[in-house]
């Protein structure tokens, strides 16, 4: 595989961080316990994603993903989905606040085109229209 020839989708950030709302989007398979788990039985991967509200209790967040060792995330979800850490930074005044929506998806797929052209755009739309995020932190597993 070679480096993508697509241009770098760089969007300038011209706000003050301390007045900005931040969203987390993770490929680490994170979701709430009462949300439908990702389908790890499908060898092609699960193209879905789950919306996580900003007031989610981190103890209620779990990982369904079988392509990385998530033992540490099971003990502390913040190692891949730093929602409590964002709250710390909000309390310190480093950021303005947490966005209204955060996203977990399972970043393993054999359907790259569908992930790139479908899921990724749907997630971007959710963040753009529904989250009021000024910037996004992306994490993998």
């Amino acid at each position, binding site marked *: 595989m070679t480096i*993508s020839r697509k241009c770098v989708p760089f969007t300038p950030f011209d706000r003050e961080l301390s007045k900005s709302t931040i969203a987390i989007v993770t490929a680490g398979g994170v979701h709430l316990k009462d949300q439908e788990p990702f389908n790890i039985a499908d060898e092609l991967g699960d193209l879905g994603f789950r919306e996580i509200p900003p007031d989610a209790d981190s103890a209620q967040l779990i990982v369904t993903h079988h392509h990385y060792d998530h033992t*540490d995330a099971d003990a502390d979800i913040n190692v891949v989905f730093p929602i409590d850490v964002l709250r710390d930074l909000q309390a310190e005044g480093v950021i303005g606040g947490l966005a209204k929506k955060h996203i977990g998806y399972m970043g393993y797929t054999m359907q790259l085109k569908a992930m790139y052209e479908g899921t990724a755009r749907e997630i971007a739309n959710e963040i753009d229209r529904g989250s009021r995020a000024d910037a996004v932190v992306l994490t993998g597993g």
Partner: protein
Amino acid sequence: MKGIPTVLITVSPEVSAQMRPPRALYPKGFKIGNSLGRPGMRDLQQQVLRDALALLNQNTRPGDTATREYPEYGEQYEPPRVKKL
């Protein structure tokens, strides 16, 4: 749709670089599944997130990955390499 500023925290910098993320932080030696550090290391997790967010305002070159070292993480791990075809 307007663009959305993003910053990636990656523990597989060679792999993620293939997609040319606009801004990326590699906490050197962190293993897969430890993007922000180890469980319960809240001070470290805060520092990694602060450093990642700081890249939003820094004059980074789009597509580059910034590497930072965090000795308090402890044992270091080699990141996965991209197989040359």
